[in-house]
């Protein structure tokens, strides 16, 4: 237990790294996923295929393999970043974007048919329909699944700890080596840090889900 208290600054450091890793990847994945999602519902076949191929490929690939690509393979292809934070953000965003894309697509499909029909009837073009009518409504139903995806992202960011980023799990590994007598306490400390993020977010998702259901 003393080990945990002594190492609190290191925990804080790891917690902050996990948070910035998660938030940065979440923003990039949200943008990328929304673009891919609109590809998947667009009337243009080639874009639809591209979106489908991307989602199918990424969903069947383990995140660890994505990390291996950006950390070990990319240097062989000419990308040599100065630290391990950047490849971790890229790997997490690329992976999460596929799930964001699916959530947004199902959100778009949940918007009433009449909405798109009405907007076509008043002469809006396809991009206008999507941007002004459908997406704003889709985002609302999409928020609970999106929160769930970002909870998963928080947990997934622990994989970065296995690839040389000193986030929470990385700190846990480091402290396990430093305090072999206190492994259980050290790892429980790490677990608590993760739960501090994931449990409130889960409650929020449940709350929003109930709100949205009532509003419909």
């Amino acid at each position, binding site marked *: 237990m003393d080990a945990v208290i002594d190492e609190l600054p290191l925990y804080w450091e790891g917690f902050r790294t996990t948070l910035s890793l998660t938030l940065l990847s979440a923003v990039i994945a949200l943008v990328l996923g929304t673009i891919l999602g609109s590809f998947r519902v667009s009337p243009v076949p080639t*874009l639809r295929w591209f979106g489908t191929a991307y989602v199918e490929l990424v969903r*069947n690939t383990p995140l660890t393999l994505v990390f*291996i*690509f950006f950390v*070990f393979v990319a240097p062989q292809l000419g990308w040599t970043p100065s630290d391990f934070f950047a490849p971790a953000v890229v790997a997490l965003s690329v992976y999460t974007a596929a799930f964001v894309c699916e959530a947004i697509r199902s959100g778009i499909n949940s918007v009433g048919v009449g909405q798109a029909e009405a907007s076509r009837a008043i002469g809006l073009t396809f991009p206008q329909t999507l941007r002004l009518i459908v997406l704003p409504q889709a985002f609302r139903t999409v928020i609970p699944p999106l929160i769930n995806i970002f909870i998963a992202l928080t947990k997934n960011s622990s994989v970065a700890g296995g690839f040389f980023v000193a986030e929470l799990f990385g700190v*846990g590994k480091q402290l396990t080596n430093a305090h072999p007598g206190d492994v259980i306490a050290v790892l429980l400390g790490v677990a608590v840090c993760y*739960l501090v993020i994931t449990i409130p977010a889960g409650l929020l998702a449940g709350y929003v889900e109930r709100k949205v259901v009532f509003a419909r």
Partner: protein
Amino acid sequence: MSSILYDAAGPRTRRRTLAWSIVGALFVLALLFLAYRQLDEHGQWETERWQVFWDPPMGQSAEDVWRSLLVTGLGATLRAAGVAAVIALVGGLVLAVARMSGTRLVRVPVTTVVEFFRGLPVVLLMFFGVFALELSFFWGVVFGLVIYNSAIFAEILRAGIMSLPKGQAEAAYAVGLTRWQTLFSILLPQAVRRMLPSLVSQLVVLLKDTSLGFIIAYSELLRQLQTNTQFFGQRYWFQFFVVGAAIYIAVNFTLSRLAVYLERRGTTKAAGGVAKAAEPVGGKVGGGEAGSSV
């Protein structure tokens, strides 16, 4: 093609769609070309680099390479996934039943435990298994997968039972079945059937998560890729990555197809039969749970 977003196209729209299609195709081709050139610039297409799979250097035979990947690597991955899946399904069933128990003394702690483990990264649980409980690497991986996935399976099964029409349980009690009989002979069979697609897609997640064993040094498929590149040299990383990814995608794709097939079969059954009432809510809940285990 089933979209609510556009009508059947007229001649002008068809022309415009075609134009955009070509633009889209050019965009995709440009991406592919950039990737190809990047690889070419670093000599990744040279036959010599791919030869490692049929005529490897350093006195190894092709059989050695493939054995290390398919037998040692994929074998270890599938073994861990298989053992973990069986134990986790049983564990999930137990937790689901306990969570719906009539006694608060059972329900409350179980709920807490499920919520606790659902919020933790699997790799942390594996690490805990190996270093705190001093399990072997294999059992460490299985431990992490079982703890996490039991919690998820429990939630899926519970969502399935909750989505059943109330009349099912009421009728069962009315004909004099006990709580346990109702659960096991009336509710669970229907819930499992309804949630089969979610269960299978969670199995895909479980299989993917065995790759986290890479981080705690369990010698599964990805570790074997790394071992090979350490032996033959870093310059073979891309080639081994491509083969490793192909193996993973092939296995997972087969399982995912199974999920889609089961889903389709399930919906045709439901459309003609009884269990349609709870579809929107039940479907949402199931989807949410599967989504939370990205």
